[in-house]
């Protein structure tokens, strides 16, 4: 039987006298400079200002807030973060022009319908297959999209999915977002090959405020991979990512969304991600969490139209002092909707994970079904995984199950493998591989599977 191993570790944070705010950190002047540099249309600029107002109004979360009880962000020095640096972007010919450490990515295999590469706050490369282009697919950076397709962007960008005041960090993102990817798939268009968006940071002091906005029109189908990485070490200066992901699935559309983060160990990662599913749409959402010093990610599927279905599959592997906190929300607003979530995490060293999973079935959402499973494998005595499931069910004709476990590698499993001649370490590796296999099998993009499999070996052998 799995048991929960809990060891409280206290990290000592030494702070010198509080540093004065950097003049180029978060303030209205920086916001105006950013907006001017980006040549924002007026509506975007107004939206940034409004977001800044909300940011000021929403209190900074503390461990007194239930949602943040296990995640302490006091050590983050927000006033030392520089949200953007107005570089003149040097265009990249493609993935081959990125630094070596970026090239281990899922993208760039040549079998993609499109690729965007964001470097820091700017787009550095864009490609889209002639076929996709000819069928009306729009795949570009959000800055350009806001200028070229104002109606499409204005009606979806930080309106319904992630409103500006969704949270403190959503507001900060709304004020200082940079880069970002916009994807529109027209009615009844199926894009067979995946589209990739890759974001990397060119230096450890760089920060990211990337946004993903996907609008899949009625009856369309698309696979999209969003990968974000940087390579700062744990003791490097603090960096941050405050991002948002908005997925709009119109009636009958199918979206496969892969969100993979491998941020550097100096980076504080905040992400608000929300999908709106209209009637009979299907979302397959795959989450890969490998990097960052600390992550706080909120992911919601809002099953708004009858018959909508969402699958969420999560993969987390933390080591060192990483602290990864994920909230998922399966929000059933209509009848005959379905959601199925599997979130698996392995932790070693002194890493810690927090998983909050809420299933809500509204009164109107009769004959819906919702499943949720969270499993955690603890590979050291100091690692810790907290799992907090929640159910709010207002309808009376539903099927709903959830379960959570956390425990070390089972001794009987180890003994069995070792009794066949496998050294202990190799037996453990096989078990950890196997633990994640259930998740990896479900990811439809083979290169994502390979990438995650390689990361398991790398993290395990480190």
């Amino acid at each position: 039987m799995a048991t929960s191993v809990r060891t409280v570790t206290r990290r000592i944070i030494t702070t010198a006298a509080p540093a004065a705010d950097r003049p180029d950190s978060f303030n209205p002047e920086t916001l105006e400079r950013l907006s001017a540099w980006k040549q924002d249309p007026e509506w975007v600029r107004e939206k940034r200002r409004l977001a800044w107002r909300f940011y000021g109004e929403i209190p900074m979360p503390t461990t007194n807030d239930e949602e943040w009880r296990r995640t302490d962000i006091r050590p983050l020095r927000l006033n030392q973060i520089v949200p953007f640096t107005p570089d003149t972007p040097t265009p990249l010919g493609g993935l081959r022009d990125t630094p070596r450490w970026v090239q281990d990515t899922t993208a760039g295999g040549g079998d993609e319908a499109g690729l965007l590469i964001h470097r820091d706050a700017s787009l550095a490369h864009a490609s889209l297959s002639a076929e996709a282009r000819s069928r009306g697919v729009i795949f570009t950076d959000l800055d350009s999209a806001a200028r070229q397709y104002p109606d499409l962007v204005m009606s979806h960008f930080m309106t319904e999915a992630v409103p500006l005041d969704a949270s403190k960090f959503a507001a900060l993102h709304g004020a200082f977002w940079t880069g970002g990817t916009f994807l529109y798939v027209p009615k009844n268009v199926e894009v067979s090959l995946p589209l990739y968006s890759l974001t990397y940071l060119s230096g450890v002091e760089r920060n990211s405020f990337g946004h993903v906005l996907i609008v899949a029109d009625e009856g369309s189908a698309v696979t999209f991979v969003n990968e974000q990485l940087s390579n700062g070490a744990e003791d490097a200066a603090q960096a941050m990512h405050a991002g948002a992901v908005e997925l709009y699935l119109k009636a009958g559309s199918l979206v496969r969304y892969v969100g993979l983060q491998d941020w550097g160990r100096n980076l504080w990662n905040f992400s608000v991600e929300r999908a709106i599913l209209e009637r009979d749409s299907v979302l397959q959402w795959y989450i890969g969490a490998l990097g960052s010093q600390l992550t706080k990610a909120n992911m919601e599927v809002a099953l708004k139209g009858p018959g909508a279905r969402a699958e969420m599959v999560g993969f987390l592997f933390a080591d060192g002092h990483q602290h990864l906190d994920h909230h998922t929300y399966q929000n059933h607003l209509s009848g005959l909707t379905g959601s199925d979530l599997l979130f698996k995490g392995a932790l070693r060293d002194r890493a810690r994970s927090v998983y909050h999973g809420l299933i809500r079935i509204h009164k109107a959402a009769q004959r819906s079904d919702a499943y949720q499973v969270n499993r955690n494998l603890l590979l050291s005595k100091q690692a810790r995984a907290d799992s907090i499931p929640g159910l709010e069910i207002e309808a009376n004709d539903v099927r709903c199950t959830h379960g959570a476990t956390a425990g070390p590698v089972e001794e009987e499993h180890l003994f069995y493998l070792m009794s066949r001649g496998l050294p202990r370490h190799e037996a453990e590796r096989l078990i950890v591989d196997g633990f994640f296999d259930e998740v990896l099998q479900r990811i439809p993009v083979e290169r994502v599977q390979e990438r995650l499999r390689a990361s398991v070996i790398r993290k395990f052998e480190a």
Partner: protein
Amino acid sequence: MGSELVVRDLHVNVEGKEILKGVNLQVRQGEVHALMGPNGSGKSTLAYTLAGHPKYEVTDGEVLLDGENLLEMGADERARKGIFLAFQYPTAIPGVNMANFLRTAVSRVRAAQSDNAGSARDGGELIPMREFRKELNSSLSMLKMESDFVRRYLNDGFSGGEKKRAEILQMALLRPKIAILDETDSGLDIDALRVVSEGVNALSGTNLGVLLITHYQRILNYIKPNFIHILFNGRVVVSGGPELASVLEEKGYDWVRTEFGEPVAG
């Protein structure tokens, strides 16, 4: 000269309670020994102890394989030296692909035996896929198993019969010197029992010594032991030739109890 497993005056505690109280046994390559005994006599404890399960605490005695002290080795090293345990209840490990696991195990055992070191060769080379496939297929057909069997997760969702066949499959691939079969017959229907027994018979020749642990005589219709031992209350109380089976069949374990048992209250 053949290999030899020697168990001498073995005392074993499980969770502080003495289960084995001085077991003596000697199994050579090429021999088949049946170890019989009623429930609770210590049969499985002996099997797990020989394989090196950490839960079983040896308090006295020794276990030697060709003069080397097995008790100082971990379970993995014993396996690489040529000890194999067919589990009574094989553990299911979801996610671990059977073929991948088998290839890794075969590679580690072979590598250790070829350099005769028995040392851990973690993450070493795997044997060539072609060679492995060939061996695997011949073992599978011997055990009348479909080849897609090994695409499944290890023991996961296997029926009782499939689990036991999978154990014998592993034994065939790992080519141990001494195999301990812990109640391999339990829970098998006649067909499965026949297939498993045929597998054991095919493998037990001059290169394999078998310690067949069983509660029932039924399997002895299929596998003919050279020696039979009766374990009772933590000790081997009788040893003899194949004829001992018929004595046991006739008189049952009650005879053992009255002959060797201490009076049991209630």
